[in-house]
């Protein structure tokens, strides 16, 4: 009898906590005071990311050494990796390019002329090349220099991207992945529009979740 009650309560709990369906994508959009301005040429800054889906780093890993300021187990964010963010940036920029914006990658904008030194060595079938590049990109410049660069580029807008991965909940450790885009004027950063797409992902690691949310957030953004 006790076993039956236990099984029944477990079944109820599983049914209650874990519906097999994930929530549909939730899109929120907002127009700002500069929505009527014709903005086409846009400098896209690299995405920033925050995640509560953290993983304890194995002690064998070289990056597992605890930092001098923390005594607890080191945690790392797997989903906010450089490659995942670069892929999300790429998805957003190509979608906006296709929609009619002229997107300039901030990472490719030099604040000063770069200097490059290359050494190429060949030993039979082996060849190696070492390249040193010194310079400064848009992200390395001061705000005043960035304003000058935007003016020189003829950029009318600045696009920022924020990514958020929520904490896992329930048996299936569902979590939400949100990507938010914000287009602002280049001169005074007045809001043109902001768009956010929030999707839900299940227990498995979903490397494409961020990209899907990024595409969803960029969908429907059109220049005036």
């Amino acid at each position, binding site marked *: 009898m006790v076993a039956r009650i236990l099984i029944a309560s477990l079944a109820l709990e599983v049914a209650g906590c874990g519906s097999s369906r994930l929530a549909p994508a939730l899109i929120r959009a907002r127009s700002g005071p500069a929505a009527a301005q014709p903005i086409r040429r846009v400098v896209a800054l690299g995405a*920033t990311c*925050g995640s509560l889906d953290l993983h304890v780093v194995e002690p064998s890993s070289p990056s597992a050494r605890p930092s001098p300021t923390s005594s607890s187990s080191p945690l790392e964010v797997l989903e906010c990796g450089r490659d995942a963010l670069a892929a999300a940036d790429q998805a957003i920029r190509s979608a906006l390019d296709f929609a009619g914006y002229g997107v300039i990658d901030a990472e490719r904008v030099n*604040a000063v002329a770069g200097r490059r030194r290359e050494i190429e060595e060949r030993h039979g079938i*082996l060849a190696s090349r070492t390249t040193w*590049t010194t310079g400064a990109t848009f992200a*390395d410049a*001061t705000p005043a220099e960035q304003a000058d660069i935007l003016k020189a580029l003829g950029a009318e807008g600045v696009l920022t991207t924020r990514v*958020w991965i929520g904490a896992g909940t329930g048996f299936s450790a569902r979590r939400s992945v949100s990507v938010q885009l914000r287009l602002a004027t280049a001169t005074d950063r007045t809001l043109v529009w902001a768009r956010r797409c929030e999707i839900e992902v299940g227990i498995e690691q979903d490397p494409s979740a961020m990209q899907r949310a990024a595409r969803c957030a960029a969908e429907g953004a059109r220049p005036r």
Partner: protein
Amino acid sequence: MTLAALPVRCAPELAVCSRPYAAAMASATRMNLELAGYSVVDTELLNAEAWRRTTTRLESTSSRAPAVPQHGLRDVPMDTARERTERAGGASWADAPVDEQRRMLIAMGVDGVLATEVGMGRAHGMARQRTLTMRVTVTRLDGALVWRSECDVETGDYHSDEQAVDLATRCAVESASLW
């Protein structure tokens, strides 16, 4: 209103004070306020002095035959590439003296400062639950309070620390963005 967002401050003994948690809380707070109509400048990304970056890329190529013979392929190039980027010579906004920080914010058209604080109470009860407090404050550049929002979430049987942080962040900012 344009806000300069400061890094998240938390109680030093708090496990949720680690860098990834702080980045997550900062990200969630700023996203919600931006969607509510605020313009948020990340002070972590502001440079008081320009930085220089040096990228070293090492590529090696070998046309040696593969150790395991592959059908139809005699000489397969084995390429490897390693890249390392180093930033030096600059100063961030946080490194600048107070008057320089203020001057920078005014020049950028910033009207106020966004501060986020997290605190955790002592464990109590059978489940050793604790109360996580999230406080979001917006002040003008002269220090005058614009608004403050605070939210408490209990951890324990039903909420892990991560879930409590998630809920408290949403709660503190959503109530603020409804105004």
